């Protein structure tokens, strides 16, 4: 086994070009578990921890976009500027693992692993984020919706490095909620991110841990756009419940040892209802 610790993105890309089977190691919170348990014995590992270029968080007010380096840790996402610009992402960050995990785990790692229960992913989905990928041959930007292909499957090619995520900064409420059986350090049994785009007069709802990958609740979104009085900023009576019901119908959950499909469906509906009420308090 070989371990490389490149000091520049270029160097990392060159290594990836020469050895596309190399495993990329960011925070280690997924890969190292597999190595420790002998489930995976990588021939070579490219560790990204020395790549300071992957960590900056930059806000472009003119474009209303925030660009987050793939190497930004959850701890970095808890605070400003993310807490103000993308509050749902800061909320999601607070639910990730423990302080130790948040100090190590990165947004890029969350994307690369692409677990249906990944806490950052519903936020990126709801906000129509764009994933920036670079290889030695050049870069490309991929919509989050195309990036996430299935359970732990993404559009990343083996020679590509996720360098950043760009997220439109919206005006309006946004929130993330996640159900787990423990009050901390728990994997999502159902999660939801709701984002209101007041200027665009739409509502986005992305569901986590209730399908092979993150699901956008299109029927619920369409319903909400109509049920909201955008000029008054109010919600029609009963609309939040209907929104939740529609969200639950979008879910395609499975039974496993963490939760039953029925509970996941139920829970994600409740979360959707509550998030919409938070967005439009009576």
């Amino acid at each position, binding site marked *: *086994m*070989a*371990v490389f*610790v490149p000091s520049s993105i270029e160097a990392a890309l060159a290594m990836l070009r020469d050895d596309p089977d190399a495993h990329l*190691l960011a*925070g*280690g*919170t997924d890969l*190292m*578990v597999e*190595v*420790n*348990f002998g489930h995976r*014995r*990588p021939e070579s*590992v490219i*560790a990204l*921890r*020395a790549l300071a270029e992957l960590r900056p968080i930059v806000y472009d007010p003119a474009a209303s976009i925030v660009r987050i380096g793939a190497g930004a*840790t959850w*701890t970095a996402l808890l605070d400003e500027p993310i807490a103000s610009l993308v509050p749902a992402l800061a909320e999601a960050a607070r639910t990730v*693992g*423990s*302080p*130790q*995990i948040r*100090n*190590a785990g990165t947004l890029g790692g969350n994307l690369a692993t692409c677990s249906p229960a990944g806490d950052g992913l519903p936020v990126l989905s709801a906000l129509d984020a764009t994933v920036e990928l670079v290889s030695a041959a050049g870069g490309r930007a991929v919509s989050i919706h195309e990036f996430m292909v299935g359970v732990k499957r993404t559009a990343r090619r083996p020679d590509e490095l996720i360098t950043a995520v760009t997220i439109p900064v919206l005006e309006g409420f946004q929130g993330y909620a996640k159900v787990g059986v423990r*009050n*901390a*350090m728990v994997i999502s049994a159902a999660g939801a991110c709701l984002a209101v785009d007041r200027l665009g007069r739409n509502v986005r709802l992305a569901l986590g841990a209730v399908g092979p990958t993150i699901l956008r609740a299109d029927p619920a979104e369409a319903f909400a756009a109509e049920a909201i009085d955008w000029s008054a900023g109010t919600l029609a009576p009963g609309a939040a419940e209907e929104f939740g019901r529609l969200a639950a119908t979008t879910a395609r959950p499975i039974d496993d040892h963490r939760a039953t499909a029925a509970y996941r469906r139920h829970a994600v509906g409740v979360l959707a209802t509550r998030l919409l009420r938070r967005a439009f308090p009576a």
Partner: protein
Amino acid sequence: MNEQYVLRVNGSERSVTDAWLGESLLYVLRERLGLPGAKGACEQGECGSCSVLVDGALVCSCLVLAASAIGADITTVEGLPGADAGLTTVQQAFVDEGAVQCGFCTPGLIVAVHDLLERNPSPTELEVREALSGNLCRCTGYGRILAAVEAAARAGVQA
């Protein structure tokens, strides 16, 4: 095997020789560098017993690939500031307040509490609970640990 690299642990350069490069920092600290203070209880970042500081960040050493930590400043419970001259304020508070039973989670908690109090010298009870929620303890139910953190905060951490 037969790989060699150098880690900076508790201020000293330490050679790691004949290592398999898949080893975690936890394994290397314990089995190769004679620093058994970090404990392994899950090897998947779910218990906090192996907590150390890497470049000032509290992390689970089981999830750090040791060979990737070249150039980083690694601090273990054995190398906390003040630990060479007897007990730190936090360690003394753990002893005084009955925060130790079997003691297996203790070194990881000591490192985590140092990290907490350095960032937040007078945390609220909820802040303590959240900051230490990644450190499982099976013996104490956390009550005396909370008391110890409060006592250490009152006494002021000697950083």
